[in-house]
C-alpha cells in the first residue's frame, strides 16, 4: 500500500541544513500494524508528517496505492488526508467548543456528507469506541482516555486506509493507555492499517512490526510479535 524510496527531508536551520530523513526506504502492506520507534530527533515525526500528507519530502518518492503523494499540491494533499488518513494525536486535538458527536462529524463536513448521514455515522463510531452514552459531552467533561477515544472515532470518520497515531498513549496513564491500545489492536484485526509513532517499548510491543529510526536512517525492521 505504501512505497517509500530514498526519501529525504531536509530542514534549513539558520545556515545549516539538517536532514531529518536521510535516504529512507520503507514499504507497508495493507492490514499491517507498524510501530515507528526511535529517540526524539530520529526522524520518526518527519516520517509521520510525510506519510500523513501534512508535509512533502525534499527528494525521493512516496507512493500511496500507486498515487504519487510526494508531488501533490496543497489541495490534493488536503483531499488525500481527508479520504485516506485518520490522525490520532498525543494531545487529542479535540475542538473544545464542540460536543463529542460534533468533533467526530468534523471530517465528514469537509467530505460534504449531508447532516443526517454524518450524525448517524458519528453516533455509530462513538458506540464503536465505547462512548455511546457521552455523545453530547464536551471534551472538558471527558477523561483523557475518553477524549482519545473520541479522537479515534473522529480519525475513523471518513473510513481511512491508514490510521496514523502519534504517541497516542503519551498523555494517558498506563491502564487507560492499555485500553486505547486494545482498541487499536481490535481495529487492526478488523483490517485497518495502523502506523504508531512512539518511543514507548510497551506500546511498540503490541504491534506486528517495529521500524527503528536513528539520525534519519532506519536501523532496524523487526517483523512478527515482539520477543
Amino acid at each position, binding site marked *: 500500500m505504501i512505497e517509500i524510496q530514498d526519501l529525504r527531508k531536509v530542514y534549513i536551520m539558520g545556515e545549516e541544513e539538517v536532514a531529518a530523513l536521510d535516504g529512507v526506504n520503507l514499504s507497508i502492506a495493507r492490514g499491517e500494524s507498524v510501530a515507528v520507534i526511535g529517540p526524539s530527533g530520529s526522524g520518526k515525526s518527519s516520517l509521520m*508528517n510525510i506519510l500523513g500528507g501534512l508535509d512533502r519530502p525534499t527528494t525521493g518518492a512516496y507512493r500511496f496505492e500507486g498515487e504519487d503523494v510526494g508531488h501533490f499540491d*496543497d489541495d490534493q494533499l*488536503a483531499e488525500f488526508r*481527508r479520504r485516506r488518513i485518520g490522525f490520532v494525536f498525543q494531545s487529542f*486535538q479535540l475542538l473544545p467548543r464542540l460536543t463529542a458527536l460534533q468533533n467526530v462529524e468534523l471530517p465528514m*463536513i469537509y467530505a460534504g456528507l*449531508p447532516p443526517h448521514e454524518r450524525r448517524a455515522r458519528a453516533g455509530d463510531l462513538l458506540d464503536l469506541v465505547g462512548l455511546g452514552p457521552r455523545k453530547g459531552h464536551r471534551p472538558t467533561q471527558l477523561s483523557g482516555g475518553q477524549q482519545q477515544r473520541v479522537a479515534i472515532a473522529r480519525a475513523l470518520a471518513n473510513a481511512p486506509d491508514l490510521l496514523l497515531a502519534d504517541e497516542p498513549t503519551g498523555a494517558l496513564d498506563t491502564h487507560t493507555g492499555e485500553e486505547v491500545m486494545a482498541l487499536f489492536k481490535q481495529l487492526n484485526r478488523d483490517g485497518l492499517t495502523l502506523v504508531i509513532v512512539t518511543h514507548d517499548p510497551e506500546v511498540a510491543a503490541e504491534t506486528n512490526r517495529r521500524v527503528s529510526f536513528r539520525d534519519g536512517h532506519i536501523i532496524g525492521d523487526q517483523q512478527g510479535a515482539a520477543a
Partner: protein
Amino acid sequence: MKFFELIRFAFGAIIAHPLRSGLTSLGVVIGVAAVVMMTSIGLGAQQKVSSAIAGLGSNLIIVSPGAARAGGGGGFVQQGAGTGLSLKDGDAEAIGKQVDGVTAVAPIVRGQAQLTADGANWNTRIEGVTPAYLVARDLTIASGRMFDEREARQGRKVAVIGETVARELWGEADPVGKRVRVRSVPFEVVGVLASKGQSGFGQDQDDVVLGPLQAVRSRIVGRRIRGDAVQSIYVKAASDDILDRVQEDVTNLLREQHKIRPGDDDDFSTQNMASILAASQAAVATFTVLLAAVAAVSLLVGGVGIMNIMLVAVTERTREIGLRMAVGAKRSDVLIQFALESVALSLIGGIIGLAIGVGGAIAIARLGSWPAAVPPWAGPLSLGFSMLVGLVFGAYPSWRAARLDPIEALRRE
C-alpha cells in the same frame, strides 16, 4: 452545502465569545448608526428647505427693487429696505400684458401693524396685494371670499386674514363680516385664509392680514411708500420649464420700462425660486456628504477593530486551524470560514447600527424641531457597506489563517 457549514462555524465562533464579539461589532455599530443618522438628518434638512421655498409658491419669480448685491452666494439676494423704490404698479401691469406664459402677476407692499377688534389686540404683518396674489403664492380661502379687482382698485377697506389673526382676535368665532382696526383704520373682514402652518424658515404663515394694495399703501404703510411704488412683484410662470425664459423676458421688459441703457446696471433684481431651491439643495447636500464622510471614518475605525480581533482569533485558534487542515480542510475552506466570521461580525454590527441610526433619527425628529427623513437606500447601503468592511478588514487575518503550516499549527500551544 459546505458553504452553509462554514457559515455555521463562523457563527459558532462568534457566539462562543459573546462579549468580545459584541465589543468588536461596536465600532461598526457606531459607524453605521452615525452614517444613517447623519444622512437622515441631512435629507430631512433638505426636505425642510425645499418645503420652505416651495411654500412661497411654485414656479415663482420675485422681482425686488434695487440692484442685486454680490456676495449672496446662491442664497437670497440682499435687498436695501426702503431704498430705491424703483418698482411701480405700471411695471406689474406691463409684465402681465407683455410677457408670455405668466399666470399671475402680484405687486405687493408690506408693513407691520397693530390690530384692534372687539377689545382684543394683535400685532401682525399686513400685506397690500391684488387678488392675483393668492394664485402666485398658492394660497386658498378657507371661509368667506377674497376681495376682487374692483374692490382693490377702489381702495375699499376690506381684508382677508390668516388663521392665527382670527384666533387671536375672535377666538373660535367666525370673523367673516367683523370689523377690525388696522392702525386705527377700520377694515371689514371678508375672508379667512386656509392654514399654511409654520413656514420652513420658522415663520407663522397664518399670522398675516391681506388688504387691497391701494388701501394698504395709502392708509397703512404710506409713510414709507408713496405714490404707486411697490416693494415686490411676484410673477408666477405657467410651468417649471419656461421659468428661465420668463425671468429673462421680465428683466428685459423692466429695463425697457425703466429706460436703462445697455451696459448700465439694473435698478431691480429678479430671483427665480427654482434656482434658489437648487442652490440651497446643493448646499445642504454638500453638508450632508461632509457629515456622512466624517461618520464613515468611524466605520473604518470599526473595521480596524474587527481586523485586530480577527488576528487575535487566528492566533488563538491556530491549533483548531491545524486540526481542521489535518482532517481534510483545504486552505480555501479555512480562508472562507474566517472571512465569513469577519463579515458576520461586521454585518451584525451593521444591522444593530442601522436600527440605532433609524431609531435615533426618528427620536431626533420627534424631540426636536429638526426634521429627519431616513433615505430608502439607508438600509441596503449600510448593510452592504458593513459587509464590505468585514470583507476588506477580514481579508488579511483570513489569509494568515489559510497560510498556516498544519504541522506548526498543531504543535502550537
